[in-house]
């Protein structure tokens, strides 16, 4: 571990997180540490527990053991909206946009957690509400532009192309002003060009100061992009290190080849 790494602050710490469904142990005491400003990869064969880990962290599942410390304070289990409030944003493996809302509205609703106006503001439309609304719209337009789907702002989300939907989902997540952005297989189903664009986008987001947790099947993308990588197999963490080390670890090779064979 280099001196620079140590200097970096810890953003998220998973402490012996366990989750089982019936008799199946989806996560076995997984502990890992994500530091501020890094791109952290979480890989593993199908069914290794990556998405389960995500869902525990973002409050969709209640872990059966262990817990998370995020940004200096423990994360409450089973409170997804609070996770977002604390600064954890996510995308979904099987894209979950609000299909019948326009692309712009999808991002605007993403600003919900960072804005405050309630019913009275909405009904009275006083000046501060109008200002907040305008700010939301500006921010949403900026984000659409940032991910490159500004041309489709008025289209319904479900009518966007697959790649645009992925990007829109990232824009919506960014609208929550996250400290940690969790991407669940963002490159799934993308071709080479699209994956390359995605890589540039993710690096850009990191350069803006947002830490990234990336679940990905595309090992090449992960190894090229991530600062550190963790590998899950059968719900257990087998290694957490820089890509160069992980790539050559016999346990990782076995986990992948074992599945392939």
């Amino acid at each position, binding site marked *: 571990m280099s001196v620079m790494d140590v200097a970096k602050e810890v953003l998220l710490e998973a402490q012996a997180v366990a989750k089982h469904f019936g008799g199946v142990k989806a996560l076995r005491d997984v502990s890992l540490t994500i530091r501020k400003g890094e791109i952290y990869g979480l890989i593993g064969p199908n069914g290794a527990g990556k998405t389960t880990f995500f869902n525990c962290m*973002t*409050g*969709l599942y209640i872990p059966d053991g262990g817990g998370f410390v995020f940004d200096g304070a423990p994360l409450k289990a089973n409170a*997804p*909206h*609070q*996770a*977002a*409030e604390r600064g954890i*944003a*996510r995308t*979904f493996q099987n894209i*979950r*946009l*609000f*299909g*019948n*809302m326009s692309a712009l*509205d999808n991002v*605007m*609703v*993403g*600003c*919900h*957690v960072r*804005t405050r*106006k*309630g*019913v009275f*503001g*909405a*009904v009275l*439309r006083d000046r501060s*509400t109008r200002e*907040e*609304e305008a700010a*939301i719209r500006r921010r949403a337009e900026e984000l659409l532009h940032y991910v490159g789907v500004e041309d489709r702002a008025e289209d*319904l989300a479900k009518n966007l192309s697959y790649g645009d939907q992925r990007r829109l989902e990232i824009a*919506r*997540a960014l*609208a*929550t002003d996250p400290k940690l952005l969790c991407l669940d297989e963002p490159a799934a189903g993308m071709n080479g060009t699209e994956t390359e664009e995605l890589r540039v986008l993710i690096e850009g987001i990191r350069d803006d100061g947002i830490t990234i947790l990336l679940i990905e099947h595309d090992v090449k993308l992960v190894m090229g992009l991530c600062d550190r990588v963790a590998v899950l197999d059968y719900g257990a963490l087998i290694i957490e290190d820089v890509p160069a080390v992980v790539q050559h670890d016999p346990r990782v090779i076995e986990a992948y080849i074992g599945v392939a064979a």
Partner: protein
Amino acid sequence: MNPLLGSLPMRKTLLGVLAAAALLILPFVAALGGQAWVRIVDFAILYVFLALGLNIVVGFAGLLDLGYIAFYAVGAYLWALLASPHFGIHLPFWVILPLGAIVACFFGVILGAPTLKLRGDYLAIVTLGFGEIVRIFMNNLNAPINITNGPQGINMIDPVAIGGFKFSAPSTIFGITFSGPQKYYYLLLLLVLAVILVNYRLQHSRIGRAWQAIREDEIAAKAIGINTRNMKLLAFAMGASFGGIAGGIFAAMQGFVSPESFSLIESVMILAMVVLGGMGHIPGVILGAVLLTILPELLRYAVVPVQKALFGEVLADPESLRMLIFGLALVLVMRFKPAGLWPSPDRRRELAEKAR
């Protein structure tokens, strides 16, 4: 500049002025058919009010509420108890109406807080049960302490009155004589315009977007930090408040309330107005409410003469024939316009895509 484009806002203004004029003279046009028709128009507006209140719950937040009438009942009974000889209390409307909204809202929160996590159809039956519970209590709370006067209901309820100006009796202003129902018409019109404004502004606000997001995908909505439970509760409580206000006006207008007016079929009718018109789409909901109030009344007048003209005698019981036609109309509209008579453009598109 394109002259056609230039004239569009003007045409819109002209249409607006015409519509406003039509709304203003409507009670006098209706009076040509007798005061009974003015009362029917009043009820149509009251139902528009109710339907728009329910629209917040069902149309915006996507919560299936089959017991909405309970909140209407709460508002109506509150008015009846606080402004009638029953307890000898006569509070003015500007006290009771807000109180009705608050109490109904309170009931909404009590019911909603523990149940809003339920899946759609389970919520439907729970709200339905709640509606029945409220009705049964109103029916039976005459013993051992007489609170609601049981099935007989409460009589001689005070009308809406501002100072000495009572809405129940006719009065002459600027040489024009306004009947009681006509005066209520203008009051109701004012209230309904307010609720339309509230609906519209809510829909296009941070709150409205959050509701739509919940309706579209609750998990994704949670993941972006929307407190879905609170947002649902908010919709539920707001809908309940509007129900409470409408109930108060209903009690004052009728001068009489009894549990019979708050049966499940009333909840169902209001839901039918929302869905038949076009859920979540304000003009559609208004259309649905007006149609479903006026249609049974029109049928009431038409059923006997039409039978006589066709068969020379009255073959079928007019009351059941009229309800039968009404039921058929519901079925047929849903068959040929599954998204409602006047759905929002999004929903129409959604349906067209499904059909493909």
